[in-house]
């Protein structure tokens, strides 16, 4: 168990990186608290797997240091770091039984056979695979194989961190849910630090206490699922989390007020940020209300999608597309409507970064 600190981390797959574009990881400074459940969320190619492989030691960073508590492990190989990693595709040793698979990491470290037995039995119990212990691992279904991969990570006592690299990719949808709650349960039982890499927001938000959102090799925001949903620090987070994502509308800022297509939009509070730069208003579809009579911004409905729990209305106002999520009755395509933004949830972004503060916030 340890706190993991990444300090001034940069990584490039090129031998002689010239500018920022050559870096897969641009500059990472981050601390993972001991025992936390973290998710690393971002689109494919954003550098999250690179970051994971650096923590596990499969990659050595071009620059910067990794500390486990106060120990510098930057140059240590994976076996010396006492970490565990579960990969996208289940890795099992085909010729061994489930028991031998689970025992493998312990036996490689020369543990006594009775310790091995105790640990394997305990882990098998936890993963509910006790009945399969004498089965050959190659005959298991993909979800059970993935369970065994996880088990091999958890079987060692006091692993510093267990990392999951999109572990549910090959699992059937109806089993994903089960494995995900299993993971959450495991985290509560073993209390090891866990880092879960995914590009799926549902997986990230259900698993983690803290979500780290990455884009283009940089960390954009770290926060609880609620933070990410309610106050995205960057328009990218707004887009990426939520379905559909945050509406981001071009606007002009004059005298501390925002104007969208000439109409004033009431912000949550005072606008800050750089004086110039591209200004945008961000509002989640959940906080846009649609009416035919009330005030707001005039728009016409382009289409309405009924997705079961609610309806997603796509409207056009001042040549911008605005999504609204409605429960119950919704207008029809082609209708003229008025859109109203909930003031406390209307944010201002400058050059992509959050620039408004809530009313009464005196930072």
């Amino acid at each position, binding site marked *: 168990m340890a706190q993991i600190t990444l300090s001034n981390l940069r990584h490039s797959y090129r031998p002689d990186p010239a500018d920022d574009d050559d870096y897969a990881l641009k500059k990472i400074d981050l601390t993972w608290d001991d025992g936390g459940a973290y998710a690393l969320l971002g689109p494919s190619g954003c550098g999250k797997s690179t970051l994971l492989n650096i923590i596990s030691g499969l990659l050595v960073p071009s620059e910067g240091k990794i500390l486990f508590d106060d120990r510098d492990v930057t140059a240590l190989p994976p076996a010396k770091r006492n970490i565990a*990693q579960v990969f996208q*595709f289940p*890795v099992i*040793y*085909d010729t061994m039984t489930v028991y031998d698979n689970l025992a*493998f990491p312990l036996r*490689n470290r020369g543990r006594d056979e009775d310790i091995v037995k105790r640990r394997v039995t305990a882990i098998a119990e936890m993963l509910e695979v006790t009945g399969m212990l004498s089965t050959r691992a190659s005959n298991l279904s993909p979800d059970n194989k993935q369970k065994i*991969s996880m088990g091999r990570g958890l079987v060692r006592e006091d692993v510093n961190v267990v990392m999951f690299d999109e572990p549910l990719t090959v699992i059937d949808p109806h089993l994903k849910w089960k494995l995900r709650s299993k993971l959450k349960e495991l985290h509560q039982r073993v209390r090891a630090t866990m880092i879960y890499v995914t590009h799926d927001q549902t997986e990230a938000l259900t698993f983690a206490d803290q979500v780290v959102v990455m884009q283009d090799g940089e960390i954009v925001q770290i926060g609880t699922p609620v933070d990410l949903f309610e106050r995205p620090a960057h328009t990218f987070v707004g887009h990426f989390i939520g379905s559909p994502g945050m509406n981001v509308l071009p606007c002009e800022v004059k005298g501390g007020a925002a104007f969208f297509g000439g109409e004033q939009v009431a912000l949550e509070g005072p606008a800050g940020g750089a004086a110039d730069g591209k200004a945008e208003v961000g509002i989640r579809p959940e906080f846009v209300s649609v009416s035919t009579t009330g005030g707001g911004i005039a728009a016409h409905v382009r289409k309405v999608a009924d997705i079961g729990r609610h309806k997603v209305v796509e409207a056009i106002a001042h040549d911008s597309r605005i999504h609204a999520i409605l429960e119950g009755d919704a207008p029809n395509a082609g209708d003229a409507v008025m859109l109203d933004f909930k003031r406390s949830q209307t944010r201002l972004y400058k050059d992509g970064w959050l620039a408004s503060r809530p009313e009464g916030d005196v930072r």
Partner: protein
Amino acid sequence: MKKLNQRAWLFVTPVLLLVAFNALIPMMTVVNYSVQETFGDNLFFWQGIDWFEQVLTSERFHKALGRQFLFTFLILIIEVPLGVAIALAMPRQGFWVPFCLVTMALPMLIPWNVVGAMWNIFTLPDIGLLGYFMNHTLGIPYDMTQNPFAAWVTIVIMDVWHWTSLVVLLAYAGLVSIPNAYYQAAEIDGASGWAVFRFIQLPKMKTVLTIAILLRFMDSFNIYTEPFVLTGGGPGNSTTLLSIDLVKIALGQFDLGPAAAMSLIYFAITLLVSWLFYTLMTMNDNKS
């Protein structure tokens, strides 16, 4: 009543004809010869299983069969581990991959009798590069035309040179198909290099190695051209393998009956060993 549709014959008949003309009919003529005696003029006399008895009890056949098994055993015991070792040593990516692959494939592209002729000239004591070097430079007596041991060493090395590449290429194909995550997981699990080979690489290569061993068994067990061109079965009968002996009986002595019986026995042994091997290798695959 449902009308029977006979159209399936349209699809099956060509295959049946093909198999009949290239396998069944020629084989039945061999069966025909194996139970009869002929003195030419298309006159045949029924002989029963006499030829089979004669072949199976003849010392000459036992010796040729023994030599054949020894040869095949040596080939497999050298080529399979060597092929796997070379495949493991080959780069998995980068500039040298195509170079290695093409170099490996080259020996296999050379026709059998050319290989025999090449090695014949290469090893001749007075004019061959290797033969001259061994005898006149190093002073080690080496003459595959006179010494049975030298002859054996030469035909084995020749086959290793010619066919190890096949094992290499198949094993290599198995190796490159192993996802990187396996190696990474093994590294995290603290597995030694030997454990990685034993529990990841070898199991993943099992299917292709089964095929490789099967192909090398059948080819080496039926080998004819290369040793025939190199040593002609000599010196004496020391390198007279089964197929060389068979051709001597059939075409040299024109004993068609015994030759036919021997062909069938030969065929049965090849089939039996291949079947046994394949069954043993795959019997655990579906067991839980």
